[in-house]
Structures are given as C-alpha cells and as structure tokens.
C-alpha cells in the first residue's frame, strides 16, 4: 500500500474516532431514535395513514435533524479547525492536503452512517413488535430510502465542507449552510409545483437538492422513487456531491493559513 493511501486510511480513522467520541454523537443517536419512535406513534395513532407513507414521512422529518447534525459536525471539522488554529498543525504533518481533505470527509461520512441507520432500525423494530412481521416490500423500500438518505447526507457533508473552506469562519459557515437547508425546505415544494408534478418522489427531503435533481429530471417524463428507484435520482445526488468535493479540493490545495 502506498504511503498516501496509508495516510488516507489513518486520517479517515482518526476522523471517525474524533466524531464518534464527541459529546454530541450519542446524543444524536438517541435523538433520532426517540424522534422516530415518537413520530411513528403519533402518526399511526392520529392519522392512521398507511405503513409506506408512515415510513417516508418519518424519514423526512428525522432526516432534517440528521442533515443539521451532519452540517454542524462538518463545519466544526473544517472551519472549526481553521478557527481553532489546529488546521495549521494538520497541514504541517507529512500528509498531502488532498489526502487530508478526503480522509476527514470519509471519516465524517462513515461516522454518519450509523446515525442515518438508526431511524430505519427503530422503525423496523417497532413495526415487527406491532405487526409481528415486516413485509418484504417494506424492507426493500426501507433499503432504497436508506441508500437515498446516506447519499443525501454525504451530499450535505460535501456541501458543508465546501462552504466551510470557502468562508473559514465557523459562525458564517453554519449560518450559510443552515440558510441553504432552510431555503431548500421552502423552495422544494414550489419547484415541485412548477414541474407540474412530473417529478414524483417519495422522500420529500431529496427535494432539498432540487437544482441538480430538477435539471437531470427535466429530460425525463417522471422520476419515480417508490416502487423502484430511478437511477437519475442517485446520479443527481452523486454528481452534486462530486462537484462540491472538487470545488472543496481546489480551495484546500490553494489555502493559505
């Protein structure tokens, strides 16, 4: 294994440890589990809506919390290091900046996977307790939604990293990332209306990335997520993530502290 690959793995592991041992991590796991449980109980009792709708609604609400948490962790991992003057120590290590950048991001993404998985696990456990068995179709839908949730979280992490490196200051980065998330929450239903309901997606939170999604979806008659995910949706999220990653990399390579 080459030296930089080894350093990448070391940086990624170090970043996972840094995130997992943070005080907020167990709190985040607990919060998303509690929120999922309460939301399922609430919607099942009051709305009596179907199981599929329940799952997508629950994930939508919990994902807002997860995305905010992912953004906070990412901003503190980049802007926080610049503000706290620890980034210059990291830059003095025998690690290439691109390796450091991707190592930190990978660590963040890996650390976020259990947080994203928690609501799904909580949902499926609750369902199996109530109904005695989980339908196979629901399992496949959960797997599909989980993959989309993970990709969405990765996209938010990449975006927050880019904003952090661009603005450098923790407070500004948190403000701009938060404003983006809020804006997307409000804009997505409007864009969906404009599209004449051509874009059909189950988890509404995917609409938090309407620009690449809408552009790519414009060429198709409709993009369906439920009952068989459309590859365009995955491609849009991956493309968005890659673009912001490249932009972030360009900044980190030219950065002067």
């Amino acid at each position: 294994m080459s030296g930089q690959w080894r350093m990448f793995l070391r940086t990624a592991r170090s970043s996972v440890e840094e995130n997992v041992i943070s005080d907020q991590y167990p709190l985040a796991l607990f919060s998303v589990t509690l929120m999922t449980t309460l939301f399922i109980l609430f919607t099942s009792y009051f709305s009596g809506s179907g199981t599929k709708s329940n799952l997508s609604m629950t994930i939508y609400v919990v994902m807002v919390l997860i995305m905010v948490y992912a953004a906070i962790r990412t901003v503190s991992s980049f802007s926080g290091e610049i503000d706290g003057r620890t980034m210059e120590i990291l830059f003095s290590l025998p690690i290439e900046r691109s390796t450091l950048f991707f190592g930190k991001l990978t660590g963040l993404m890996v650390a976020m996977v259990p947080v994203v998985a928690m609501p799904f696990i909580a949902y499926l456990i609750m369902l199996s307790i109530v109904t005695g068995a989980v339908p196979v179709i629901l399992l496949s839908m959960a797997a599909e939604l989980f993959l989309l949730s993970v990709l969405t979280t990765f996209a938010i992490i990449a975006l927050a990293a880019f904003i952090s490196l661009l603005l450098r200051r923790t407070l500004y980065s948190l403000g701009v990332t938060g404003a983006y998330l809020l804006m997307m929450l409000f804009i997505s239903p409007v864009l969906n209306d404009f599209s004449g309901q051509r874009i059909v997606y189950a988890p509404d939170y995917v609409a938090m990335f309407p620009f690449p999604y809408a552009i790519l979806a414009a060429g198709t008659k409709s993009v369906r997520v439920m009952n068989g995910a459309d590859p365009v949706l995955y491609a849009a999220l991956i493309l968005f993530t890659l673009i912001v990653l490249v932009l972030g990399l360009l900044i980190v390579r030219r950065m002067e502290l």
Partner: protein
Amino acid sequence: MAENAGYYESMTAFEYLNRFGYLHSVADVRGRSKECLREVGLYEHGDERISTFSKGMKQRLGIARCLLNDPELVIMDEPLTALDPNGKTDVIDLITRMRDRGATVILSSHELRYMDDLCDRLCILKNGELVENGTPESIVHKAGSLSHYKVLLKRPLTNEDILRAQFPEIVELSCLNNLLHLEVDGGADFEKRFLRFLLDNDIEFTVQSHQLDRIYSDYFREAEE
C-alpha cells in the same frame, strides 16, 4: 511549532499525543506518547483535558507533540511568548535537551536575553532581510566596543561624579530613581573593578546586561530615525 497554535481543547493530553503519533505513523503510539509526556513533565496531567492547561503547559504539550517522531529538525515560532518566568525556564530547558539530543532547532524569538545561552548561531532580520548572522559572541563583538549595563541599586546614587572619577571608561552615565544606566568604552576588567567598587562601598545591586536586546533595538531605532 507555530506561535499560538491551537489545541483540541476537549481532548486529554494523552489522547492528543496519541492522535498525532498515529498520524505520524509512530510505532507503539501509546508508549511513545507516555514517554513524551514524561519528558516534558506532563505525565501526571496526561488524563486531564487540555482546556484546563495553562499556557506554559500547552507549550510543553506542543513540544511533546514535536518530539513524538523524534525529528531531526524542529522549527519553532516564538516558543517563549506569553509565558511566565517558570514557563520560560521549562521551555528553554526542553529546547536545550532537544538540541543536546542532536536535533537542529530553528526558532524565532523576540526574547533575546535568553538567546545568547540557548543558540549556537543567531540571525537578526530587519524588514525581511538578514542583517546579522553569526554566533551570539561574534554579533556582540561586531556591534562595537561599547558595553551597556543596567544596575538596579537598593538606594539612589548620591554622587555620580565619584563613579566618573573612578572609572574613566564610562562614557555615558544616567541614574533614574534606583536604576543606573552605564555605557562603557573598553576596559577589559571593567566589570571586575566595578563589582569590587560596589561591594567595597556596601552598595546592594542587581546587574542586568542584555547586549543582544540593545543590538536588536539599535537596528530598529536606526530604521525609525
């Protein structure tokens, strides 16, 4: 080691060194971290959070981080800044030990009074240009035959003329309150004779002689003028 470098305040000193040891690919990271903590005198504080450390302790922790991979070259930016006298002594002692172990230490500092004992070579930079380069002794020698002394007396001097008569090599003498400033031209045994004079006359005193500080100030005073 950067001036005012940041630390992961929520980590303990031991976790901090482990992290950097791991990134430096140090073999037996935990053992080496303990060794370095012991070396800088922080072993007892290894499990304490860095946020509870004083500036001097953080500086020592920074040095421990530098020692992790046993480097041949250490570059330090103002390692003595904002430290109390004890902290300065500790850091100077650590730098001396690094040097004695064979590492080359390049450091920038405005605390010149400590540099003549600490450094083998010394450079003075003015507006980014090298204006002096040599051993501390050679720089002092090159600066001229005038020597400057500050003598802190227990009592104010009553008669300056006695001093002038006794020591003709004194070219400038001023006394403000209890602080006596002397500028002396030549007189190889001046210091010995002067000390003898003070002792014979039962004058209690403290001598402060910081030639490097003066040489440095002279360079920058010239620029201002």
